[in-house]
């Protein structure tokens, strides 16, 4: 038994921690801006890159991938070497990982603000960045597994299982959901269309929550909570059960984002069933965390780190109780498209991810700088500000959600809708203001933390390396007689990786394969035709401006929705939609049947100044669409790409596409001229009007035909 000397390198965890807090503040600032924009549309500043539709993806991506992402890497790069008694495998890879990830974040935020987006929620980054993410993720994986293979501790602690499963699942999700056909350097079309695209997107979207925001953070919890409480995790046995059941069940839950949509019924039911089951493993994890503190509650009173952890784990419990409830179809009928979803995700993000990160930071910084925390009192103040912020954020959103549901679904005794959509928008504004105040208070707490941690670092001295020693692992390991098979898995990282992949792969395979194979899942509708070139260009402007952030294109089969918007949406209507644009939140009305509802001039005036057509609207103005010339040099490659994806444009259509485009644009311009609006036909707004006027038209034609044939 030869003892070897080695050192833990604290430089990378320190860098990741700084990045976590920096991007956290940036992401929350973006969130604050969009929160206030919903109440005060003037804050969109009439500029393309400060407008809600572009800033909201920056907020979501920054919080998920920059704040929580760097938080994950902080936890892994600090805890993995200590759990395995070996330094990280390669310092070069660590550095590539760190700087590569920050570069992706910076470039990603810039491209989003410039309007380059795939329009798939939380996967908005365009194809070159998708490739870059994959490369950096692989670098991280190699570094992690290199560390695991050169370890001096045979047993893999439960936190590491969560890291491994998270890594492999995120890789799978990201690659499958990022199948896209590049059209140009920063533009691509999703490989999938309509219903399939929606299913793949939410299979990804929900599991981004599962395997990016949850499982790696559970790993973090399993390491930092026992360390901070100075006592072992409540039940190691429960952690094993928790792990396998959680990763197995989570994958299936995606379709609960598509209840009552055009997604086939069987997939919706499957999603609901598994979402309800998800309650058990999630609560197993929560209880395991909370029970760890049994007998240590006196410490919680003293120690701000534990305070943050307790509320984080409690918020995790609340979110994971609420999630299954929201997956019940009758509850989802109320919550879908409403602010309830927003409240739900923020209990998770602000409470679980945020507080766990802050707890980790308060625990880590004094240790990295071998000193004590500058001010415990200030940390406690941060804790209360944060908690108050969460409460002030969530309650108005819940209230708003129910209020909007009751208003939307109210009918007069004569059978008319009682409220216009604009009435609902107006009554939401006070809640939006309260929510933004809640968010501001939360951010104030974060700034307090930054001050506290900087002061802490200043009074200490950075501990670059920590010396350690441990015997090397014997090559030929003979398990003691009487050890059992799960204990074997706990010693074999590759087996753990493969088994995790099988377990998470199952749910994905069983949902996706039938949706792609079974023709009857997407009934064809004869009258549904591909978009004209001008409409296709207009659709890309719709995508660029992020309209899907506030407008859905999916009417659910409820009386109040059909009365308000028109015939409910059918699966066959979306077969040429790469990507789909169903949306998941209705800040504005649904647009699935907007075509033909208003004259061209209405759309023209509305995009120039929404308030002129809809007094009280909170929609931003889009003046640049009236100045920018439509780039028709891209038409050719767009038509070509669409044909490759299976949209039936005739061979050689590219040659005449721009002719047709100009013809349609001239028609619209003439139409506008009748209403005394002068504009040249080569502006972007013309294409957008063409697209909006096309929405839902195809199926309206079919209804008329079927009536005529009777």
């Amino acid at each position, binding site marked *: 038994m030869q003892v070897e000397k080695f050192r833990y390198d604290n430089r990378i965890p320190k860098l990741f921690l700084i990045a976590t807090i920096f991007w956290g503040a940036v992401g929350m600032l973006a969130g604050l801006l969009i929160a206030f924009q919903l109440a005060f549309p003037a804050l969109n500043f009439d500029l393309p890159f400060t407008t809600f539709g572009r800033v909201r993806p920056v907020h979501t991506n920054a919080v998920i991938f920059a704040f929580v992402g760097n938080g994950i890497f902080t936890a892994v790069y600090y805890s993995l070497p200590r759990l395995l008694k070996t330094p990280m495998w390669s310092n070069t890879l660590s550095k590539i990982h760190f700087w590569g990830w920050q570069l992706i974040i910076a470039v990603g935020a810039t491209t989003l603000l410039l309007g380059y987006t795939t329009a798939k929620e939380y996967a908005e980054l365009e194809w070159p960045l998708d490739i870059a993410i994959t490369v950096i993720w692989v670098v991280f994986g190699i570094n992690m597994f290199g560390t695991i293979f050169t370890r001096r501790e045979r047993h893999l602690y439960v936190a590491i299982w969560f890291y491994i499963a998270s890594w492999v699942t995120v890789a799978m999700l990201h690659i499958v959901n990022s199948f896209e056909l590049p059209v140009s350097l920063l533009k691509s079309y999703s490989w999938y269309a309509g219903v399939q695209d929606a299913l793949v997107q939410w299979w990804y979207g929900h599991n981004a929550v599962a395997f990016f925001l949850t499982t790696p953070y559970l790993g973090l919890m399993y390491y930092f909570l026992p360390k901070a409480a100075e006592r072992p995790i409540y039940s190691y046995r429960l952690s094993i059960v928790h792990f396998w059941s959680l990763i197995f069940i989570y994958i299936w839950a995606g379709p609960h984002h598509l209840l009552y949509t055009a997604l086939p019924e069987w997939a919706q039911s499957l999603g609901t069933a598994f979402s309800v089951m998800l309650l058990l493993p999630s609560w197993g994890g929560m209880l395991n965390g909370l029970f760890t503190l049994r007998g240590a509650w006196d410490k919680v009173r003293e120690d701000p780190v534990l305070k943050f952890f307790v509320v984080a784990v409690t918020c995790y419990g609340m979110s994971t109780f609420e999630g299954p409830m929201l997956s019940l179809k009758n509850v989802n009928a109320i919550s879908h498209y409403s602010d309830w979803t927003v409240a739900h995700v923020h209990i998770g993000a602000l409470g679980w991810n945020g507080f766990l990160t802050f707890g980790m930071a308060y625990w880590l910084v004094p240790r990295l700088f071998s000193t004590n925390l500058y001010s415990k009192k200030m940390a406690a103040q941060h804790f209360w500000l944060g908690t108050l912020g969460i409460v002030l954020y969530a309650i108005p959103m819940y209230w708003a959600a129910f209020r909007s549901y009751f208003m939307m679904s109210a009918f007069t005794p004569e059978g008319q809708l009682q409220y216009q959509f604009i009435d609902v928008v107006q009554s939401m504004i006070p809640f939006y203001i309260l929510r933004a105040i809640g968010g501001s208070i939360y951010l104030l707490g974060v700034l307090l933390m930054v001050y506290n941690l900087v002061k802490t670092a200043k009074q200490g001295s950075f501990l670059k390396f920590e010396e*350690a020693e441990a015997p090397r692992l014997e090559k030929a390991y003979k398990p003691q007689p009487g050890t059992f*098979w799960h204990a074997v898995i706990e010693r074999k990282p590759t087996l753990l990786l493969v088994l995790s992949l099988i377990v998470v792969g199952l749910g994905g*395979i069983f949902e996706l394969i039938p949706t792609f194979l079974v023709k009857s899942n997407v009934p064809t509708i004869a009258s549904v035709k591909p978009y004209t070139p001008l409409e296709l260009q207009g659709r890309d402007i719709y995508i660029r401006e992020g309209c899907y952030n506030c407008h859905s294109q999916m009417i659910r089969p409820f009386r109040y929705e059909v009365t308000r918007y028109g015939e409910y949406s059918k699966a066959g209507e979306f077969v040429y939609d790469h990507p789909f644009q169903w949306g998941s939140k209705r800040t504005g009305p649904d647009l699935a049947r907007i075509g033909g509802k208003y004259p061209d001039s209405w759309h023209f005036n509305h995009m120039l100044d929404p308030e002129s057509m809809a007094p009280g609207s909170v929609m931003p103005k889009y003046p640049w669409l009236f100045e920018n010339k439509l780039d028709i040099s891209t038409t050719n490659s767009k038509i070509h790409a669409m044909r490759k994806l299976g949209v039936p444009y005739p061979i050689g259509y590219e040659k005449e596409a721009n002719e047709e485009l100009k013809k349609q644009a001239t028609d619209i311009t003439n139409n506008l001229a009748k209403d005394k609006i002068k504009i040249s036909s080569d502006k972007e707004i013309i294409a957008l009007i063409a697209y909006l006027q096309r929405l839902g038209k195809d199926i309206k034609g079919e209804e008329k035909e079927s009536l005529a044939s009777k």
Partner: protein
Amino acid sequence: MMVIILLLIISICISGGFLIAFLWSVKDGQYDDNYAAANRILFDQTKNKD
């Protein structure tokens, strides 16, 4: 429809397998020593003082 039934049968078999393995492992007393693993992480072998 065929594919769904086929997948259903396979999935029930696999999850049944997981369930049997799990129940067997519990019965077998495989989770009896949870002490070492859970406690090991609390002791860092570093020379630096905390």
